[in-house]
């Protein structure tokens, strides 16, 4: 197994990502103070989705992996979205 190509992320990058994640957490809490109606959950999920992207990209090194692996992980999210959408074909039309 070849590990020679592993990428080492600099500490300052990791600290910056941590700062962005904390900012997003603050943002998630802040938006609950506004009455956004049906969009409340959507906004929360969008922020959570962005946070997941940052963790996957930097903390889990996906940004530095091969295109194939990035596509495979992206497919998981696409699949998740499709499953949620199909479920709502039931709930929206009942």
């Amino acid at each position, binding site marked *: 197994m070849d590990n020679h190509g592993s990428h080492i992320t600099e500490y300052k990058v990791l600290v910056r990502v941590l700062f962005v994640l904390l900012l997003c957490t603050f943002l998630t809490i802040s938006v609950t103070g506004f009455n956004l109606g049906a969009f409340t959950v959507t906004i929360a999920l969008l922020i959570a989705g962005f946070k997941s992207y940052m963790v996957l990209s930097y903390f889990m090194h996906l940004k530095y992996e091969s295109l194939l692996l990035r596509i495979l992980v992206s497919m998981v999210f696409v699949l998740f979205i*499709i499953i949620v959408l199909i479920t709502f074909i039931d709930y929206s*039309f009942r």
Partner: protein
Amino acid sequence: MSTEYISFLEHQGKYKGIRSWIFATDHKRIAFLYMYAIASFFLIGAILGLLMRIELISPGETIMKPQTYNGLFTVHGIIMIFMVVIPGLSAVFGNFFLPILIGAKDVAFPKLNLFSWWLFMLGSILAVASQLLKSGPPDTGWTFYAPYSTTTGTNVITATTAAFILGFSSILTGLNFIVTVHRMRAPGMKFFNMPLFPWAIYATAWIQLLATPVVGITLIMLIAERLFGIGFFNPDLGGDPVLFQHLFWIYSHPAVYIMILPAMGVITEIIPTFCQKKVYGYKAIAMSSLAIAGVGFLVWGHHMYTSGMSEQARWFFSLLTFLVAVPSAIKVFNWISTMYKGSIDMKPPFLFALFFIFLFMIGGLTGLILGSVATDIQVHDTSFIVAHFHYIIFGGMGFAFFAAIHYWLPKMYGKMYNFTRANIAAVALFIGFNLLYFPQFLIGIQGMPRRYFDYPPRFQWAQITSTIGGFILVSAVILMITNLIIGVRRGAKAPANPWNGTTLEWQIPSPPSLENFDEEPLVKENPYDYK
């Protein structure tokens, strides 16, 4: 320096005796651990099934009370689904042969592999315990449908905890296999140089990794509802019982493909070997495995046509269900085309493979009847469903398992078995199987409900036929296992390549050494090159 060959069975590691097995991190020993455990659970599940068949031999109470019958079909389902057919081929033959077929020394995470087996055993013990503990066996069926499962006084929490732990084992095995395929292939072995069994195991591993967490969370929600009265699924508490069905089948339909994809992989290995012919449509078979895994995720709603789902959802799920038949049909077409003008050698593994194709076709085509909303509503929750899924699961996965053990046993143990006895067992299995399950199609169409302890006398002819079939089936299984045990103990020594196969496992001695390959394996561009 001694050059004497030492197989993995003879290799003296850190531990001796039973500890050399239960603490082993060698993928081949772990495969054996799974195989013996799964074979034991299969026999327990078969005995429970036979008891149900005896009960159904005449209308009314025969040998047990209705509540006992409810417990039996539930625990039979839990054992057979979660402890036999889901892990079956993947954990046994995937573990043993995936690394060898891709030219690796082991899986990517050997210790995690052992941990998966321990989790599997813990979950299995809990599942069997749920049958024996004070409150009585769960009576919900293996599907644990809410809201009944949120209120029944039986051991539902024990059984769902068992299923949760078994799910964890499955996830970790899937993760291990995905990383193994990506990172451990021998130099020169690209994705499209891999044999097709690793392709099938790879597609299966993705389903294990992505679908199993859904059922894990669902079962945790069910336990939370029972313990803390949180209203997820019970309408009395503001919950939605259809939500349970959605979540349950988002996992449990792909789980059918966890069972059948490795089975298709096994058959795809056996057919070219016993036809001595290059597999027809290599890329189509590889891609159809991925297509089945992908589309299989989107068809769960066909289990719920009568649950009160919206009209639009029923239409949509019906369409998607018909789509998933296409890649399955591609595989069958390719198997038949591989046989065409091949040099066919009717040895036991090939006979089992032929029976697999026949039974899987019946299971698959009756599946289309269930994929269509109109016909499904007619036969929903009847014994037609029981017949259909036994044709897929037992006729498919079960026969593929038997084919696999007859194909690879010489490699695993280094011994041969008696072909005549194996062929007799295969034919008896086939006859017993069809006698057992085919009548259930007929009385299902006539309205015999599934999971019913009693029935009108007009269905008795079919129930008697099925029970006779059940006894023939169990006798054939005993004959088959006895023949294999005799082969392992007293059979002739197996050569390295008894079937003249071309894939990597046949290039190494039988049984393999601890690290499989003493020198770097020779990777061919086409793994099925019979020139």
